[in-house]
């Protein structure tokens, strides 16, 4: 099998070195760019399978080149940044980023995100019908949910929300995306509806609803289904 290629875009040598060794150990080919210009060149020339993008680049704002990187190929883009304001995250996601990791990051978590992004890219044509998250099994074809051996009965809204998350397993899905998909038009700003549905959903599927591990909240951004 051809090793998958990761393009790391970061102006900091140490971060590149850290990401490089981590990813290499995990079996990826690594190419590096220290600025926006090199990043765009490499993205076109080397057709990486996934791109890790830092927002604070010396020559251009990372948010600016994000759409260009997306256009240059099919590679998903993961933003890896020290900026933790929700505005920045939402802006990056809106501009086409596939996920967002905040520095300092947990290397295991980062690898999980890279895997999730790659899986999504591979399955882009035909999404998986069955998604397994922990003890939870979601069948998008039959619309049936099992927690362990038990079938779980969800309301229509609960299922719609869970389905949105299951279609992008391991990746963050913004409130807006879920609200748009599961509610009629005009409800995009009504996060409180989504919160209540998620709360009810958790009561039905989470082993310990007060410590959710399946449906994880991303502060101010959205939810993620852990797989």
């Amino acid at each position, binding site marked *: 099998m051809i090793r998958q290629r990761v393009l790391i875009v970061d102006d900091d040598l140490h971060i590149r070195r850290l990401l490089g060794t981590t990813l290499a150990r995990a079996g990826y080919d690594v190419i590096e760019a220290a600025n926006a210009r090199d990043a765009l060149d490499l993205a076109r020339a080397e057709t990486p399978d996934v791109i890790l993008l830092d927002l604070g680049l010396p020559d251009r704002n990372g948010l600016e080149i994000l759409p260009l990187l997306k256009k240059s190929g099919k590679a998903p883009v993961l933003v890896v940044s020290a900026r*933790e*304001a*929700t*505005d920045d995250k939402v802006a990056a996601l809106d501009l086409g980023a596939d996920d967002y990791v905040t520095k*300092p990051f947990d290397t295991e978590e980062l690898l999980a995100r890279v895997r999730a992004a790659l899986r999504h890219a591979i399955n882009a044509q035909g999404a998986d019908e069955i998604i397994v998250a922990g003890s939870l099994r979601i069948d998008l074809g039959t619309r049936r949910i099992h927690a362990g051996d038990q079938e779980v009965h969800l*309301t*229509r*809204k609960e299922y719609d929300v869970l389905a949105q998350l299951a279609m992008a397993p391991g990746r963050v899905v913004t409130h807006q995306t879920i609200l748009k998909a599961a509610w009629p038009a005009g409800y995009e700003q009504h*996060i*409180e*509806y989504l*919160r*209540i*549905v*998620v*709360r*009810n959903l*958790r*009561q039905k599927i989470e082993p310990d*609803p*007060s*410590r*959710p591990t399946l449906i994880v*909240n991303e*502060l*101010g951004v959205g939810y993620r289904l852990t797989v």
Partner: protein
Amino acid sequence: MTERDRPPPEAFLRAAAQEGLGRLKIFLGAAPGVGKTYEMLSEGAAQRRDGTDVVIGVVETHGRAETEALTKGQEIVPRREIAYEGRTLYEMDIDAILARRPKLVLVDELAHTNAPGSRHAKRYQDVEELLAAGIHVYSTINIQHVESLNDVIASFTRVRVRETVPDSILEAAEIEVVDIPPDELIQRLKDGKVYLPQEATRALAHFFSKSNLSALRELALRRAAQAVDAQMLDHVRANALGGTWAGSERIIVAISEQPGADGLVRATKRIADALHAPWTVVHVETPRGQQLGKDDHRRIAATLNLATQLGAAVATVPETSVVEGLKRYAVDARATLIVVGKSARSRWFELRHGSVVDRLVRETPGIAVHVLPTETAAAASVRIRQPGTWGARSGYAWMLLMVAVVTAAASALLSILELGNVALLYLLPVMASASLFGLRTGIAAGLVSSLAYNFFFLPPVGTLSVDNPENVVSLIVLLGVAAATSQLTARVRVQADLAAAGARANATLAGFLRRLTSLGDRTEVQRTICAEIGRLFDLRTALLEPTTTGLVVQASTSPDTRLEAMEMAAAQWVQDTGKPAGRGSGTLAASEWLFMPLTAGGHTLAVIGLAREDGGDPLRSDQLPLLTNLLDQAALALERLRLEAEMRDLETVRERDRLRSALLSSVSHDLRTPLTSVLAAARQLRGGYTPELVETIESEALRLNRFVSNLLDMARVEAGALKLRTEPTDLTDAVAAAVHDMRTTLAGHHINLEVPPSLPLVLVDPQLFHHCLLNLLDNAGRYGDPGTPITIRGERRVGELVLHVVDTGPGLPPGTETEVFERFRRLEGSDRSPSGTGLGLAIVRGFAEAMGITARAGNRADSGGADFSLIFPEALLVREHEASEDE
């Protein structure tokens, strides 16, 4: 010699210092080209003719033939050559002069800056050395080079000279002003007789405008006069003239609208100088003053102005009569001497009203009265009588009507009335007219009544003749009553008017004060001062305050107010001297605006500019006292704000200093400690891998990370403008996320989550709230005893929702419940050394408050441990039915 006769020691010292020293005489000019050098050389030549040993130290003739001629036949000490940057400069050779030891040396251009490499940087320092060596010096200077006037002059001439001479040099010198009229100087300039440096010609063309030259000339003359005053004062002190200069004398001088008052003021100034006594010019504002014309008011204003310039205090006293006013003021001011002018009033007037001087002498025991002649005989007769004194025409009509009515009524009642009682009836219209319309109308009423009485009732009826002598008495009584009543009521009315005017002024003042004190904002106060004074006096106003870049207009009645260079110079003068300047004053009167200082505590806080729309004099003399009062109040208001701001600044600076030092110690401690651990662990790793070392690196790095985020968060709180992005948040999510992020730090504790899913959603900024929780958990983890549980409990109460973070441990020392939320506060009394930054709880409070949440600290009731709570008011809770529309 008694104590008070002894001259002050500094007078002795100054005289002693001058023994054996050379004397300096300065020829002071308003501008280049007035002929200072010429004048100096002429006097030098004269001295030489008288046998004095005179040499020329340095003279710049600028190639002027007349000047050049004067140097002929005089000894010139050759100048010294100084090489500087490839050029040769010629400077006065001070050593040669000192060696030559003449009696008198002529040194041109006192403000000159010597070439680098000379002994002194400035020529005046050379001169000081010459003087110290006992050599007399003649020198020249232009007024613009005088240090204290440099700014003022530069502001209106737009030519700034760098070479200035300290005022102290001038104060010690004898000064002769070399003065020619501006027109003549301009002519000389046109004739090419004035030397100008080539490069400065354009700038100087503006400099030599007539208004500039007039102003410069005025400043030069004033400076010279000031020097004379100071020297005279020294003389007076040294000789202890008068014996009463110690301030025991207080002089007041009364002035009126009559011409000659200015002479009186000048004469009093001389008396005051001789006695070295403080003096006040008093104008008593009598009811008669309300009938004065515009010219009279202007004259009074001019006199009061003159008085201010001459150093007098000025007061306007409203009172019914001059004598009363003077008496009252003299007693209040504890005056010892009253100066009045010999009255120019007619003998007739004095017979009627009594002589002011006589009454003053009689009624002010213990106060000397000094009567000075005034030169007003000619001018006094010019005075035009004011038409107003005759009373309104309608008054006469009413009076006639009343007399007619009484006549008619009396004829109707004649059958039941005695003739004598009819006369009494006529008193009614007389008294009514006198009290309502004034003296003259009253007397006219008396006349008309007596005529009517005589004609209609006194036999023979129908004629104006009287046959019974008793009835003559009735007539006289009628007239007498008319006169007496009208005098009486007129006086009462005048007093009432005065009282009303006083009350109006007081009400104005009180209103102004009330408005000013109600304002806390400086800009508002400035604007109100301008607007109110503008409104009360119907003037355009502008308020200027000194800033680092000079005076700046802070507020004005019309937004397009532009002040010209001349106006700014006048304003600057006011700022510097604390005395009025501009239109209608004695200084820089060419300005369209009059500028008055706002002073408090001896400092000029601001300058207010006043201008009349039509370009006339902004103030009448009778407006001055009210304006002065208003300005005093305005100044106090500004001073109050200034002090408040100062206090605040001081407080801020102190707080900032405290924070800075706390932050520095915190940063050095809290950054270095984990860094040290990380470094040490990393080094040891080279020797061999152990899981403990890696764990150390990881947890210490996490600690660093928390500290850095806290610093960033604190900076956001400090910046004040926290941008909130609130959204409905599930507390379960929020708490779970925080516990997840803190899992390493809280490793030794069991976490109890008691956040029921039935709790309503809360409206918070998820990011900020997350940081609140992180810090509360961090705090609980650090202060809670190791191994004990930490409980996070949410509970719904009436009107609020409370989220508790409870630990088990020593808890808070009593009384520190609010203190814990302050920056860099770590609880004392805990023997463990928590590695906190002291920022965490401050961030909790800062963020919580920004979101409308109340943060509270306390101790658990059940057992030991702290209980921190976040209290969400009802407004932050999302009501259930709004959110649960599902299905």
